[in-house]
């Protein structure tokens, strides 16, 4: 498996330089009144869209930024307009 990702700071780089940060699942929910079920759903639950999805990546071997890309895990490619941000 190999592909490239577009870091918003450094541009297109080899995936070896990045760490995967999981699917986009929205900000940390407020803890006041948060049930255990809701919390664990947020932590563990993932949708498998079978197509392009929003993902977090960390450019650890580069500038050290966390950023989001839209990528299709079926082809491993970034999706048009899904660059960094």
């Amino acid at each position, binding site marked *: 498996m*190999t592909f490239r990702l*577009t*870091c918003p700071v450094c541009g297109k780089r080899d995936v070896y330089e990045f760490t995967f940060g999981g699917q986009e699942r929205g900000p*940390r929910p407020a803890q006041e009144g948060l049930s255990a079920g809701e919390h664990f759903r947020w*932590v563990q639950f993932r949708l498998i869209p079978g197509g392009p999805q929003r993902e*977090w990546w960390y450019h650890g071997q580069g500038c050290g930024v*966390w950023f989001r890309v839209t990528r299709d895990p079926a082809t491993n*490619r*970034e999706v048009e307009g899904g660059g960094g941000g």
Partner: protein
Amino acid sequence: MADAGRLPPGPTCRVDFLRPLPFTYLGRPVTGFAGDRVASALYASGIRIFSRSLKYHRPRGLYSMEGESSNTFMAIDGVPNECAEMTALRAGMSVRAQNVRGDPRTDRFAFIDRFDRMMPAGFYYRLFHRPYRLWPLFQNGLRRMAGTGVLDPRRGLGKDGPRGDGVEAEGGFRAEGGAGGGSRGRMGSGVRAERYLNADVAVVGGGAAGVSAALAAAENGLRVCLFERRGWLGGHLDWRTRDFDGVALHRRGEALAARLLEVQSRSPEIVKVFTSSPVTGVWGENLVTGFTVGTGDDPFRECHWECRAETVVVAAGCMDRPLVFNHNDRPGVMQVGAAWRLARTYAVRPARVAVFSVGDDLGLEAAIDLAELGVEIRAVADAREAGRQDPELVAALEERSIPVLSGWAASRAIGRRRVSACELRPVNGAGSRRFQCDLLVANAGMQPRIGVLASVGARLAYCSHTHSYQPIELPPGVFVAGSMTGLRDPRSIEASGRLAGLHAVTCCLGGAQKPAGKGAATGGREAKATDRHAAASVATARRAAAAAASPRHDAHAHPGPVAGCDIRQGPAIGRGAKAFVDLDEDGTYKNVVESARQGFDVPELAKRFGGFGLGPGQYRVAGQNLAMIMAEMRGDPVEAAMPTTVRPPLVPPSLATLAGPNHDVHKRTPLHGELAARGAIFRRAGAWERARYFSEDRACRDEIRNVRRNVGILDSSPLGKFRIFGPDALKALQRIYISDMRGVRHGRCKYSAMCNDMGQLVDDGVVVREGENDYYLTTSSGRAGTTVEWFRYHTRYDGWDYNLVNLTDVLGSLNIAGPNARKVLERVTGSDVSNGGFPYLGCRRITVGDGVEARCLRLGFVGELSFELHVPSSYCRYVWDLLIEAGADFGIQPFGLEAQYCLRAEKGHVIIGAESEARVTLTDIGMGWLWDREDTVSKKVGAPALRACEKQSGRMKLVGFRVDDGLGSPRDGAVVIDGDEIVGYVCTTRRSEALGWQYGMALVREGVAGRGGRIHIRQEETPGRQEPCTATVVPPPFYDPEGRRLRS
């Protein structure tokens, strides 16, 4: 000079007869010459049987000269499965046959061939399995008789090869001959290298098309990497002497290659040519991988490389498609390319008398060429009907009185161990002719090397014009050129290469061929490529596009793809024929018939069932023929035949090369030399090489005793050290740490922990406030590398303004611990370090020696009075010397990681990964007091999980224990049992000198320990102890429970 087996060296000869190379075959001395392959030298010396086949132990000879089958797999210098066709000959090599008993000419297992009826397709899955208890017996027997080489474990690389210098010594696989400084075989020892390349255009194949593509791209200023598997450029032009346009073809190839090499020497940053460099595969987004076999001049034996390319031009060329006929595996049956290269490249006489059976004009040309070199050609059969051949070639054959049998093909090779005659028959129709010969050169035509195309993800379909697989859809940025596409005319091949090169240029510069998804790219390689050409890019792209238009006409002006030959198998083959579709796996035509009869009638199924194409040759020998034959058996048109998947590596590199050079990348602390001088025994700990022991006593009794009684000094430099500052620094701390960090004060260490979203402990350390919105924090050594990532990840939605700086390598850390620690420190600093002025958990800036400013933290990890000095790395040695000198009167001695591990365990301090694991939360290991449970505003990482788990029962809890006297001494990892049930395990246990008893910590299911305060620990690992021992639960800390010593 050359012997009887040799030809006079011609203009295309690559062998230097002035440099003889002695080597041994089966212990007998043989002489080859520089430039020889092992197989060509053996063939020249009269060796015809190189090996015995996998299943039937049939004699096998030189077949492809390009490594397409395992026929010439041999053990070279003790390394099995070396492909003798591909291995450059070196002086002193020791070459042996494999899968034989004795000499391959008289193999003791040769009788097996007569029992082939016992080994139908898939026999390994079906026979000998009943009764099942006998299977291991058969299996072992089969294993002994079948298979290829044997690896000699005694020749393995020594465990203690030189380390740290990144260079692997010539240990292990050593040459038996010993001459010339040891083996230089491909798979043995020797330096491995790796290289990471970037290119705008990667060209696979250095033939006429590949070189033309590279030139076209380089002329437009694009960076080109060209990979050629042979040791030279020129492809099939290299050995052809036929006149074309008034110039010999090999001269044409040389001129083309010279042009590219000239560009390389002029601008090596633009063009990089790699010869002896087969491509192993092409991966996502055009990552081309392969390896370079070192020649004598290279500093490595084999070098793995990866080339990230914007575009790839595939010009991998063609190879012979084998003709499937009776006994087509007999030594003496050879592919056209093999016989031709043997004669022209290696100046080896392939035979005295030969017969040809071909399906392509190249075969006719080869026949003429060999006749020219003095080989008597008795007949040339061409599977194509009359009129489809190049009339010039037919005329040339007739001129030499060589009968050309159009529409004929070989039907049988005759001869028990070697070909002595052959039988030719019309493809359609009756009759046969028999010719005496010692060489039968046979193919069914040419087939493209589709491996790279398949690897790159091209969609292939059968082309009924060229009778080969052709790409019908290519991934973005991939272009195909050359004889692969069915072209044979050199001008057409060169034009197609140039066109592909220009397509790559337009693609790189954002032209019309630009694949979707790349146009909007804003940075990275893409941008760099365009930046570099910023000024000229538009103009260049236009020029390139204009140029691309012209060779298109050019290409059309030259002949297009030639019609191929669709012969599948030799005439009158018969269903029971021992006609080999796959040589490596002994897969015969008969096996294909059986396979189809049992329902495995598509190539992918037959491949699994009968093993066709599974061997080292992969697709190359079996692929297209298998697909064509299967289609015919099913009654499908040949266009329906789909080949089996070709899998990388397309050419196998040695495992040692994939493993890479043996460089152990690790960090050393600033005090490494000092510790080594004091006899430290180093061990890897995460990224660091750390002093673990200072004596051979693995219990570290002296080191521990000295810390408890006098004072010890520890190099704790790998400790994570960070500064976090900015308006939102506190918010970040509140998010990450489980405690309330608002109370962090100046001059005082706040101990806290980080949890993950499951409430598990991931890190602990102290935080000190150093100024307005400015904090200093420490993390555990193993966690230092991911701390920045962790902070930023958990605050990624918040847009907070803070900076986190990793000071781990900038600052070293020295820890002095023991009752005399203060006395030592007083001698090196004028600052107040008294208990009143600098209490436990204090943090001060103190000045040490001649003005080194140090952060000094008064902590108690090992349970004694202790000071941790954080000083700039460059001052560490100075401060170390100072402390050692000052401590001489107080018995200062260094201690290592193991002593620290025991000392802290006596205090019940946990180490992440030792006393915590994925199943337990912060509260389970007794550190729940750190958690600020009131805080729901900061969204502390882990807090919801802690809240959820706190009410659960039956969780694992960390307990301290004291092993009951006289019942044994369990070890780390021993399981805790309750009756027959395993209820936990021992994390750490040691015998303490200070306490006089064995203490430990264990993770056990809640409630188990409650019963009578006793746990039972199994200790089979301890010699002589079969009964479980008992231990009494004792809450940690075991040593100095009131903490008087660290507060003293």
